[in-house]
């Protein structure tokens, strides 16, 4: 740690991963990347990592993985070619070289991009444009049927409610009480409530009579003037005169 210049050159903070470091080392060879000596590059990288280790610098795992892989590549490159091993070392070296070329190309492209005349740095748009406006104009639509139903709706809602239920017969509660009381007076046995309804009645009147007669039966039962029996909810409702 005492060797300051050495440590500076080993500042791994500056590299974005092993490929980045490899590319920097390759560029230091000062030849076209296509002409580069992969073997020399591998040795440089391994030497670098070794020195970091001697200096007890902490290396990220991916640098060590790359080091292991490059060590393998180096031995494969140095050993006689074994046709059984796929892919062979030359192929691996070539792939590494292709990757370095591609990263180098993009790094270069990025630099050229940043050096262009950039808007807001080298060229400026008008700072206070009048601005363009889009005026949204509604084209309203409605149809005659909609107009008619709307008026019908309003009229129905607001017209004085002339609920003259002219064609509707009803049996009032009073009438039902009188009727049920009279009929039950003559009934010794249980009789279903339907037997107390007028026979010659319209559907609407029978509905009204049923409702009124039911209420009448409840009222008469309360007064002790009739007994009620029902086996189960919604079962037929029977009425008779109280036993004694």
């Amino acid at each position, binding site marked *: 740690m005492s060797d300051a210049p050495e440590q500076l050159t080993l500042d791994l903070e500056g590299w974005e991963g092993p490929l980045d470091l490899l590319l920097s080392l390759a560029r230091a060879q000062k030849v076209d990347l296509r002409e580069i000596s992969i073997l020399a590059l591998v040795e440089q990288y391994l030497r670098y990592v070794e020195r970091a280790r001697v200096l007890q610098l902490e290396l990220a795992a991916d640098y060590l993985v790359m080091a292991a892989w490059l060590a393998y590549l180096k031995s494969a490159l140095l050993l006689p070619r074994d046709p059984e091993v796929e892919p062979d070392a030359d192929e691996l070296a070539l792939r590494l070289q292709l990757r370095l070329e591609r990263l180098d190309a993009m790094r270069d492209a990025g630099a050229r991009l940043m050096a262009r005349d950039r808007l807001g740095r080298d060229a400026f748009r008008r700072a206070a444009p009048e601005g363009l406006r889009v005026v949204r104009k509604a*084209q309203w639509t409605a149809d005659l049927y909609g107009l008619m139903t709307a008026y019908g709706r309003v009229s129905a809602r607001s017209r004085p409610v002339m609920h003259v239920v002219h064609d509707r017969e009803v049996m009032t509660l009073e009438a039902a009480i009188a009727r049920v009381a009279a009929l039950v007076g003559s009934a010794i046995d249980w009789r279903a409530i339907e037997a107390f309804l007028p026979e010659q009645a319209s559907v609407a009147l029978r509905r009204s009579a049923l409702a009124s007669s039911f209420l009448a039966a409840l009222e008469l039962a309360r007064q002790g003037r009739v007994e009620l029996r029902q086996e189960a909810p919604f079962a037929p409702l029977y009425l008779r005169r109280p036993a004694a």
Partner: protein
Amino acid sequence: MSAASERAVEAVLFASAEPLSLDSLRAYVGEGDGGSDIRASLAALAERYRGRGVELVERGGRWHFQTAPDLAHLLRRDREEVRRLSRAGIETLAIIAYHEPVSRAEIEAIRGVQVAKGTLDVLMEAGWVRPAGRREVPGRPLTYATTPEFLSHFGLRSRRDLPGLDDLRAAGLLDPVDLAFEQLAVEKDADDD
């Protein structure tokens, strides 16, 4: 005046968020070949842009570019959108059509609901309703009536073509909802028997 100074003044004025005085321009462009350089550049630019779509103008000793006033109409564009009238809108329109001229209070009495200011605005924007004078009663309320565009949009030759109440009743459009419902219930019972 140099061509370089003219270009510089042009660029600085274009890129400035505010009109610039001679002093401000000088601060950006530099003195150049002499103090009168900027003044000459401004004069040359004003001449160059005269009658173009963009003009160089001076207001109170400060200079700026602006689009030519006679082209202001180009800077806005109308976009039409088809929109259906709301329920409140069509009900209010119907009431005006059947009862015109009618005041806002009368519309509210018939609808049984308040009429929002926006509702009448929409009907007037659509061109179907117009103010139709004031009623000579206390408060002198404004009344509303329909327009010829109303008739043509709804395919009517005159207001007399509007279906009358009898027509509406015959079409079943006047039956209150609850009555119609009861009718249905009774019919259903009859079917069951």
